[in-house]
């Protein structure tokens, strides 16, 4: 089976709104690769992610995870397969990094069960993977923006997911931290994790993704391999502004016309 996640003619309307956030959307997310969703604000990118882990159920149509409808899994089962890295996350309490990452083990624990030693080891390993283990006892409130984003990735990794959802992961990071995160995500993909992310940043997408989904007004305009779709025409149509794509040294850059 090629795709890990499949949207089949999905229409979705938020409760108590009249406007359809997603309209008849069909989409496949290929396994073992990075798929990036691009599109203007309000195109329905975040909504698509929300449907991908079952936070909301489609008004019409079906979401398939590993060949089964998402509704056929329990929440905990989904939590063991799909992990979310939200765009922003506020928490007023001064957890240590290890305590916070340990929360990612929740889908593996019974409601009254405490995390065991192997859960701690797993959380530690997730911290190691994003390179924050030397700060394991530091308070999460003492972290910089870049480190905090890596921490959220680590918590998601503690879920041992097959599919990692990231909502604009680099949107408020400086260049150095963007690079750090991109490299970390690359190493995850080579370890076999599938990534589905939204992004507003062409340089991040072209450095990381193999597949792109171009969205506008709740619909998929085009989707396919980055090599094919990364054209001035497709991107200009998506954002409704004239854009230009430059190739240089194997990198591709997007600029305004």
């Amino acid at each position, binding site marked *: 089976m090629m795709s890990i996640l499949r949207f089949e003619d999905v229409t979705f309307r938020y409760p108590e709104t009249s406007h359809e956030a997603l309209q008849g959307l069909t989409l496949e997310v290929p396994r073992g690769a990075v798929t990036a969703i691009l599109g203007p604000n309000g195109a329905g990118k975040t909504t698509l992610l*929300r449907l991908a*882990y*079952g*936070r909301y159920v489609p008004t019409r149509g079906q979401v398939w995870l590993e060949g089964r409808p998402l509704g056929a899994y*329990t*929440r*905990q*089962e*989904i*939590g*063991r397969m*799909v*992990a*979310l890295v*939200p765009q922003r*996350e*506020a*928490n*007023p*309490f*001064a*957890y*240590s990094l*290890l*305590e916070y990452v340990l*929360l*990612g083990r*929740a*889908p593996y624990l019974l*409601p*009254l069960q*405490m*995390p*065991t*030693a*192997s859960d*701690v*080891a*797993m959380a*530690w*390993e*997730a911290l190691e*993977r994003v390179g924050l283990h030397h700060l*394991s*006892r*530091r*308070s999460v409130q003492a972290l910089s923006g870049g480190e905090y984003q890596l921490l959220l990735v680590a918590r998601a*990794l503690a*879920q*041992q997911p097959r599919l990692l959802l990231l909502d604009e992961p680099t949107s408020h990071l400086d260049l150095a931290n963007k690079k750090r995160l991109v490299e970390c995500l690359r190493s*995850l993909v080579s*370890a*076999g*994790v599938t990534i589905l992310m939204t992004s507003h940043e062409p340089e991040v997408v072209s450095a990381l993704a193999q597949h792109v989904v171009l969205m506008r007004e709740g619909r998929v305009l085009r989707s396919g391999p980055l090599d094919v779709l990364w054209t001035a025409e497709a991107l200009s149509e998506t954002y409704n502004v004239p854009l230009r794509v430059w190739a240089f040294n194997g990198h591709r850059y997007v600029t305004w016309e």
Partner: protein
Amino acid sequence: MNLTSSAQPLDLMARAPLWLQYRARAHRRLLVLGALLVVVLGVSLFLGRYPQVGFLTPAQILEDPLAQRLILNLRLPRLLAAVMIGMSLAGAGLVLQMVFSNPLVEPGFLGVSQAAAFGAALSIILFGGAAWRVQASAVFFGLGGLALSYLLARRVRYGGWVLRLLLSGIAVSALFASGVGLIKYLADPLRQLPEITFWLLGGLAGVTWKPLLAALPLMVLGLVILILMRWRLNLLALEDEVAFSLGVAVHRERLLVLLAAVMVTAASISIGGLIGWVGLLVPQLARRLSGADARYAVPTALLLGGTFVVLCDDLARVLSAGEIPLGVLTSLLGAVGFLLLMTRPAVKV
């Protein structure tokens, strides 16, 4: 991915020795706090104003039958009530702070305290203040206050779930507070008003075994729920989306712990009246001591809360011949402690 293969439990010593050290320290800390509570309880049992201000001597206990009865029938239930109330208010405060993701929330939110106060005051003017009626009415209205806040929150058309619950809690509190004001205005100023006032100020002077035992099951049940769910509380403090993605039944689990918190709060109010600041100060202090992880913050808060209220009640009993209302003391010490805590640089986590 190969996160699983290399992480064996046996590796833990090599991988996270700091964590083990940290956990051992957390356990030691709990042991010390537990011992402190036991010592405070033991000392308090012999402390009072009979037959002299200060401690009962062993000789007096052996010889004086009145002293024996005093300890068994008055001081013991009163001390137990103080411990349970302290634990309840501190535990409930911690739960509310976590569920609302706001360290400045206390059990009075959600309208519970004011509703319980209204229930007690109503019972005093309607039925003349028979203890069990006041108590039952306080619990009934306290739970009713929560239910009202909850139902109202579902209808509020503004903000997320947490903000809506907070807003409706404020409104419900104000509603019942005005009700209390009205009852005070209507009450007989000679017979009923002093009783209502005493109750609103909070105190354990009248506590005997009977009211304590009546409230005990509710408190024990609620506290057991909180203790069992203590690690899970961390998940309930996360934002809805994140908690959901971790497989948590966010609404149902939050409702369960809120219900437990309200049960213990209402039961506490039904015995001791309004005792403020414990639920705000003690969880803050507990987090400073044990770190934010509720797995350790919950037991720490319970032990500290019990100790704090027992000490305050000791002062209330001993300082003057006419008792100082307990609620006044907890507010005074709580507010001072809170100011100290807030102006101090953060203790190491």
